[in-house]
């Protein structure tokens, strides 16, 4: 099941961004995105899972670029969500292959999907709440907030990595 969900996620991620670019008449970019999607599927089929991080990074950058190119934010967000799903499920697929107990694999798969559904659900809620909040900031205040955010993320990453 995880394998099929990886394919679905990659296709959904590439398709949403392709459609977004194509709707803005950026067909060559759209084709390039589709090629990236096919390449990611091919790498996954060949069990070259170490490239999934690279593909994830590329699709996040494409999602950012799509906003810069005036593509609808919904497509960019869908691209981010599905690329995150594909990247996460690729790792789950690798982890499940390390056990030779099918019952354990099924149980772990279910628990993982629940956690993932929680993350995606909260993200969707957050994404639809954010446009309703209108705050006018100066560039300095925005930069300060960004720095604060970066400091928070850094503290979180430091905490996570110190446990490894």
């Amino acid at each position, binding site marked *: 099941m995880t394998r099929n969900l990886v394919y679905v996620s990659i296709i959904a991620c590439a398709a949403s961004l392709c459609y977004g670019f194509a709707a803005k008449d950026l067909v060559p970019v759209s084709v390039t995105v589709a090629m990236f999607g096919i390449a990611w599927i091919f790498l996954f089929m060949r069990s070259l899972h170490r490239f999934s*991080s690279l593909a*994830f*990074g590329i699709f*996040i*950058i494409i*999602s*950012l670029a799509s*906003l*810069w190119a005036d593509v609808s*934010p919904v497509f*960019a*967000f869908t691209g*981010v*969500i599905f690329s*995150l799903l594909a990247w*996460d499920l690729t*790792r*789950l697929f690798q*982890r*499940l292959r*390390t*056990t*030779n*107990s099918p019952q*354990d*694999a099924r*149980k*772990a798969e279910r*628990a*993982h999907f629940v*956690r*993932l559904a*929680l*993350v*995606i659900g*909260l*993200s969707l809620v*957050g*994404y639809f709440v*954010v*446009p309703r909040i209108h705050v006018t900031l100066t*560039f300095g205040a*925005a*930069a300060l*907030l*960004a720095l604060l*955010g*970066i400091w928070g*993320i*850094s503290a*979180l*990453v430091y*905490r*996570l*990595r110190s*446990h*490894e």
Partner: protein
Amino acid sequence: MSRIALLAALIYLIILAGVGTLNGAMVALALPLVLYLLAGLWRGPEELHLSAERTISAERVAPGEPVVVHLTVTNHGEALEQVLLHDPLPAFLSVVEGASSRLVDLPARSSISWSYTLLGKRGSHYFEQIQVLAEDRLGLMVKRADLPTRGQLLVLPSISRVRHIAIQPRQTRVYSGVIPAHQGGTGIEFFGLREYQAGDSPHHINWRVSARQDDIIYSNEYEQERVADVGIVLDGRRRVNEFSGRRSIFEDSVLASVAVASSLLAEGNRVGLFIYGKRNKWTSPGYGKYQRERIMQALALAETGEIQNFSSLIIPRRLFPPNSQIILISPLSGGDVSLLSQLRVRGYQLLVISPDPVSFESRGLGDSPSVKLAARIARLQREVLLRELRHTGIQVVNWDVSRPFEQAVRSALSRPTAFLHAIQRGHGAGKR
């Protein structure tokens, strides 16, 4: 790059791009990644306080005999969401029932027990540890540990029985056995005649010869039979044992070594073993069942190695004095003749049991005309090599491994070879 670092880098990128372009929708793209990161922090593994116990149903088994391994892992600390418990196994063992790796939840102060069944080929394995990998559900926080356990499994080589191997060492030991000692005395085989001495059994008087003499009575003398020192050398050079498609004739060599050692020890001989492979290892000579066990254990661990030739093969004189018997078990290569000749010159009686690599490899290469031609050329080269060895006085058993070992040995060694007959006849004539 670790997953956390990648996520962090992408979040920084999104935030900086959003602030740089003053685009709130762009900043909002970071939300799923931040939540994913926070989910990793939530209920990630803290310190690991685990212990493991192992029981194994048998420590010494024959190849193909099932072994049940029972494991219990106890968590003495906090709950762990997702733990991979992996019992590493070597290539010669395979799991036929159950699982050697489990992916489980371990609640606080709880245990998990499970069993799995193994089948093994020849080899030895120490179950030293269980590898633990604890992580959160999303795999961001990872903790590793090795839990020490005890246990050993020895899969001994298959046993092929050979009734008798007719060796003819030049020198024997003082204890009685079944190997002709080239000395007159009590025995079964006629050895020669000598003048009757007081105390000789009347049954031993040779009346026919005595009748031809005037005043002398002759008694028959029989060849003494004693035990001997035998050194078995198992050739584990990868170059001569392994072929295309990961096929190896080494297992057949090991099987021959077991059969030869068992047969010679059963007849009371003093047998030692030298494995010339990955680790050059001598099993010092000894007698009886204890020595057989030592040899079996050494053979269970035998592996092929990268050594190219026999240049570092040294037979210690302290263990095997000149004139004792050396049995080399090797597929042989062209460069081996000189070393084997040197051993002969030093006085060792040599017997070479050679699993036939040509027929072994040609069987795995199909039936095309080119394979047939190549096999024919290789067979001719091998025949020349074996003939060269025989000319230097070395006994050679060319064993096609598709035939049972006992059959090959019986046809080649159950009676003394022609030249040994000639030696015996020479001795007999001298006595007369």
